[in-house]
């Protein structure tokens, strides 16, 4: 599973500069482990010196006050809390979105198929067969990082980021899948990414809207399914 992805034998906490610690969990990416990450995040939120928390894929970023927090003591406390963390479950909501694979919007699809030495249709079928769980917040307010990509679709990220247009991006990066929110006039039209964009979801709903309460459409633990709308070869 997840060949080529870093996997630790034991959990570890490393500094991320002077204002953050990163806990990396042991073992492969798995729902049970991630559910413990979410509960650890809840438990740590109230600690003195902790200013913010962000679950990652198999990891937890703990942002600390660099003036008042003792990073080394906090690291030890974090490891101890991890060993006791119990799983926390999501709400079980399911979102289904239609995807146009390939074409101008999914320009990296042929390269991904070539990388795996299979037909475009095979990539599309494997991608759309999965049920994806929102595992961690993404780089921006949005749907978050998704777990559930068929391990056979593992595709290394690009050596150098490229610019890709925003708007319903359906992409693969390493062992992960991602869905981007709709294009909006008040946001940049393109962003740099090391991921491979294989399609677009033209009717994707807004994942994060300040006018909504709560602003996020999905929570950690909620699920997404992709429906094949069309394949442009």
């Amino acid at each position, binding site marked *: 599973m997840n060949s080529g992805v870093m996997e630790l034998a034991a959990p570890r906490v490393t500094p991320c*500069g002077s204002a953050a610690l990163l806990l990396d969990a042991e073992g492969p990416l798995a729902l049970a482990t991630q559910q413990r990450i979410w509960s650890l995040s809840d438990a740590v939120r109230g600690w003195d010196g902790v200013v913010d928390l962000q*679950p990652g894929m198999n990891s937890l970023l703990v942002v600390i006050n660099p*003036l008042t927090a003792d990073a080394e003591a906090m690291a030890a406390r974090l490891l101890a809390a991890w060993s006791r963390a119990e799983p926390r479950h999501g709400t079980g909501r399911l979102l289904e979105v239609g995807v146009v694979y390939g074409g101008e919007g999914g320009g990296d699809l042929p390269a991904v198929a070539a990388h795996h030495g299979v037909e475009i249709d095979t990539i599309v079928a494997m991608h759309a067969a999965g049920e994806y769980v929102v595992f*961690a*917040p993404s780089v921006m307010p949005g749907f978050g990082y998704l777990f559930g990509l068929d391990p056979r679709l593992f595709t290394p990220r690009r050596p150098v980021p490229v610019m890709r247009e925003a708007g319903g991006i359906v992409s693969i990066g390493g062992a992960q899948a991602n869905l981007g929110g709709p294009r909006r006039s008040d946001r940049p039209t393109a962003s740099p990414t090391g991921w491979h964009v294989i399609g677009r979801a033209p009717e994707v709903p807004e994942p994060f809207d300040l006018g909504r309460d709560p602003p996020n459409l999905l929570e950690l633990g909620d699920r997404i399914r992709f429906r094949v709308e069309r394949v442009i070869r």
Partner: protein
Amino acid sequence: MIEVLLTPPLNMVQDLGRTGFRCHGIARTGAMDRLALAAGNALLGNPPDAAGIEFQLFPVRLRFTRDTAIALTGADTMPRLDGRLMPPWWAVSVRAGQELVLSAPRRGMRGYLTVASGIDVPLVFGSRTTHLRAGFGGLDGRALAEGDRLPLGDAPAFTPRDPAGLGARPPGDVLPGGEAPDAGPGDVVLRVIPAAEYDQFDAASQALLWSQGWAVTSQSNRMGYRLQGAVPLRRTELVEMRSHGIVPGVIQVPPSGQSIIQLEDGNSAGGYPKIGAVIEADLWRIAQAAPGATLRFAPCDAAAARAAERAAAAYLGELRHLAGLGRRELGSAA
């Protein structure tokens, strides 16, 4: 109000940033030079997180519609108030109708305007800072444009005792920084704590991180600085990383071997290996390093980082104290 009469793009309302909302992928996205913003607020007696304006491009022309007090910190933008040149790192009273002109700095990158009581745009998730990519915070989630009118907080209840204003010593003259043996004059030395993937780089690359100069390329902005070293860095283990939360200052090394420092508007998460991270107390030095500048990395640990943080806090505390003595409360006999 402050009226924006002239501005290039990318000048924005910023404060010390948004914390507590990374659960939504919302990172800090605050002022690049946090120390300059905090110093401006200290000069004016504002709370440290009062919102000001970060200027990255010039020229800029502003008009004040009411009496207030302002401070200009960060890069020296040669501020002229009704044509009269102000010293750098300086606070003065302004009268309604006065115009302020800022010019491209000869040294440094980013200038900061703070105003008594702060810029009073709405709080979004506890902060007034502009989240440009997500389109919220600041003034309608966007950069300033000509014709904008920025609301101000309550009118100041003070004026500088000296009509010429009061100033601060720039932190670059006061705060000790890191030391790199090979640093040339003008090089920017940044203290760096090795991060999770440091050990995945071969010994030569680990040595190069500290020994070679890193040029700031033109692909450098609030999201991050792409650096160019003479020799690319190599990992011995080419394993794919999982996406994880990252903070401003993280030095990522994509497979190209050229490093990227993630900064305030950078992604809240990333997947490239992290060889190290610049300590929080040195982030302002990056903010003032322009494309073409050479960065040097100096190894640092948690204890030294905390000492640097304490030095910055002491600098701001002393500035706040001295500035308080240099202000006269309006309506008081003194």
